[in-house]
């Protein structure tokens, strides 16, 4: 074995051992909740069209950028609350918090909305902390973060008004949204607590349903801990026609950006008609492991990130 590789593997061994414990702890939590563990394909003929998520294509098929559509097809088939830990693939995503192949934890709770899913997340993270022998705090990058629920919630509108000085809900500006989120809003989130950003502008609804009584925002929430964007939760949209309209809009945006065309995910849209009311979330397992290993880079919690694969 090359010297460099063996030194690297020795250096991250404690992190990878801890990672295995975290995977066990996640499974233990969801079994305790009565969730079914499922296993959906990584190789798939269609993906959810999203403007800024580029799938890898393989002989006309795709490597799964998210297990969402298959899991919802199982939900539509009456499988009830479920979870999955699987690899996902997103082309071009590489940085200290990104690897083009990464591990996602996704779960759906039958009958829940996005806030119920955030409560699941609070309990899950505490459960993982406890199973690692930690109390209710975790030290990350020199800060002690108190994990005790409830985590502070702030609406996207409030967070942008106070940190960036504009309202992305009443005055949507997609050109500024992502840059201000990263440069202004995220740095202003509490450093010693997890934070929940809720109620995204309708333009960023993705597959979340719009809020009853406030259709300018979607029932979508994101969890941030220690500067890490950890998870993204929805009250799932169950209206197939509305979903198809959003997919078409995303396809248009992809085209405008010069991205390759994607097929319409017909089987998923057909199943959406039978999708029960549910909430769901995608949580980046690598980032959760980073948090509990006090790792600055995703490479420190992966056996073989891209540049070592």
């Amino acid at each position, binding site marked *: 074995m090359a010297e460099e590789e063996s030194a690297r593997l020795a250096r991250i061994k404690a992190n990878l051992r801890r990672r295995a414990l975290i995977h066990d702890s996640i499974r233990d939590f969801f079994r305790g909740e009565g969730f079914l563990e499922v296993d959906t394909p990584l190789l798939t003929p269609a993906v959810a069209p999203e403007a*800024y998520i580029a799938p890898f294509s393989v002989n006309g098929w795709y490597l799964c950028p998210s297990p969402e559509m298959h899991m919802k097809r199982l939900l539509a088939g009456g499988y009830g609350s479920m979870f999955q830990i699987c690899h996902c693939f997103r082309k*071009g995503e590489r*940085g200290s918090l990104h690897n083009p192949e990464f591990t996602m934890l996704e779960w759906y709770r039958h009958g829940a909305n996005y806030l119920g899913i955030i409560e699941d997340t609070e309990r899950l993270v505490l459960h993982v902390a406890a199973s690692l022998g930690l109390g209710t705090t975790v030290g990350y990058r020199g800060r002690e973060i108190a994990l005790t629920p409830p985590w502070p919630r702030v609406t996207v509108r409030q967070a942008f008004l106070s940190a960036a000085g504009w309202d992305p809900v009443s005055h949507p500006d997609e050109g500024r949204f992502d*840059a201000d989120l*990263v440069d202004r809003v995220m740095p202003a989130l509490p450093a010693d607590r997890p934070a929940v950003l809720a109620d995204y502008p309708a333009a960023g609804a*993705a597959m979340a349903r719009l809020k009853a009584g406030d259709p300018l925002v979607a029932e979508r929430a994101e969890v941030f801990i220690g500067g890490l*964007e950890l998870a993204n939760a929805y009250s799932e949209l169950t209206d197939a026609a509305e979903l198809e309209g959003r997919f078409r809009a995303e396809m248009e945006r992809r085209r405008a*950006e010069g991205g390759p065309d994607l097929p319409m995910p017909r089987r998923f849209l057909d199943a959406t008609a039978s999708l029960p009311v549910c909430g769901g979330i995608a949580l980046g397992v690598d980032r959760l492991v980073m948090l509990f290993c006090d790792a600055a880079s995703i490479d420190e919690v992966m056996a073989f990130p891209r540049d070592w694969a």
Partner: protein
Amino acid sequence: MMEISEVARNTKLMIDGAPYTVEEVNFVKPGKGRAIYRLKLRNLFDGMAREITYHSGDRVEEVSVTSHEMQFLYEEGGHYVFMDNETFEQHTIDKKRIGPKALFLKEGITVSILIMHGRIIDVNLPKFVELAVTASAFTTKTDTVTAQQKMITLETGATVGVPAFVKEGDIIKVDTRTGTYVERTGTKK
């Protein structure tokens, strides 16, 4: 043109008419949002650092910059003449373009030269060069010279602060990045 997502460390880019080397790519992306690429760049002409932010879908111009080992032959009419160690082709560069590094350029040494479109754009000296002291005991009252230090002149014309024991005819090792004395390595016979 090249997609911004393909840019990596050491990629060479042409920006506003000047070649840059990419020293760092900082990738940031909200899960559902647009990727942001913060590039730390260095201008290959003047060495100045610069940061530019790009977004997914942006395209940049890659430029071919190649590195060649060359021997410094001589100076002639305000130009330096180098010979490629592999092809024996000769290349010249205006003395002014090399800057202060030229003070440590000794005939016969091998340097690494960056070529873009057939033109020399940078000369990289070895980190250390050994040069003979041609004039010593040069006294000065400037603050940089301590009681234990004195200024000497080297065979290439550079002046360097050295410990008092260094004398004319000694060979000393100089750090070309800082222009400072490292050690005495011998005496010229």
